[in-house]
């Protein structure tokens, strides 16, 4: 079985007693306890300000990842704190990743329009991303 794990350590001293949470998950295929996600895609992109494009497309129903247990990691590697990207799914804003911020989410990809889109602001943002998934079948070249 392919094994992918994601561990987060969250620490904060905002409260009167410091908070520290560590959590780890093994990324399994949808609705199974015996088979891990076995496909992945990783990349690094530079996105000019104002540009909005699909980082991950959900438009290939044959890919076999719709309504599955996809996991997506996105990091804004920009260093200027005023730089940020807006994350949207199916044109609905999820939130902003400022320079140095990262996110790790399950991605339902519930239908063909549920793409993960990003738009850059202030300057050219530099993005690292990873997508762990299952079931993608490459299409034959037409």
């Amino acid at each position: 079985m392919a094994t992918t794990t994601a561990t987060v350590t969250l620490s904060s001293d905002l409260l009167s007693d410091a908070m520290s949470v560590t959590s780890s998950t093994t990324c399994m295929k949808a609705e199974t306890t015996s088979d891990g996600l076995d496909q992945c895609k990783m990349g690094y992109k530079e996105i000019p300000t104002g540009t909005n494009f699909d980082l991950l497309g959900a438009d290939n129903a044959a890919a076999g990842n719709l309504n599955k247990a996809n996991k997506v990691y996105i990091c804004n590697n920009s260093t200027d704190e005023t730089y940020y990207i807006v994350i949207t799914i199916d044109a609905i804003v999820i939130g902003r990743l400022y320079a140095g911020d990262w996110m790790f989410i399950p991605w339902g990809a519930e239908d063909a329009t549920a793409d993960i889109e990003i738009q850059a602001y202030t300057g050219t943002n530099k993005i690292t991303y990873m997508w762990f998934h299952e079931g993608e079948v490459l299409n034959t070249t037409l």
Partner: protein
Amino acid sequence: MATTAAINITSDIMPGFGGYYKTMTLTQAGTITDIEETTGFSRRKLAATTAVDLITMADASLLLETDDNTAAKVYIKNIGNGRNAADKTTYVTVSIGDTGGTTQEVGRLYGNDWLLMPVSGVDDMDVVVAPSTNDAVVLEYVMFFEV
């Protein structure tokens, strides 16, 4: 006062992948000033497939109105039934929107899965959750935000 989050990803899917580690300090939008507000670490038990607002962005629930479109972050973990039994075959769908209106699915949190994501803080762009079954499932969550 600082809040930090570190992620460590390991995987043997791709030969030669040596793992990935990244840490971030949660800062206010467009600055290097630390984020200063939090909901505190919370826990909510659900036992029906009905969608509910886990975090409502409007003033009444948070006591402090979230500043819109800034650098808020939410952490959620599906810890299973709360008695050390997390089921990888059932899930909680996490969405953004409002239970009284429309929602956009983010994804499915199976047992022991967690997420950390930015949220806009805009009213009615709440964090909405809906279990896949009527069995008890417990979510642990915290939001860090600006006012």
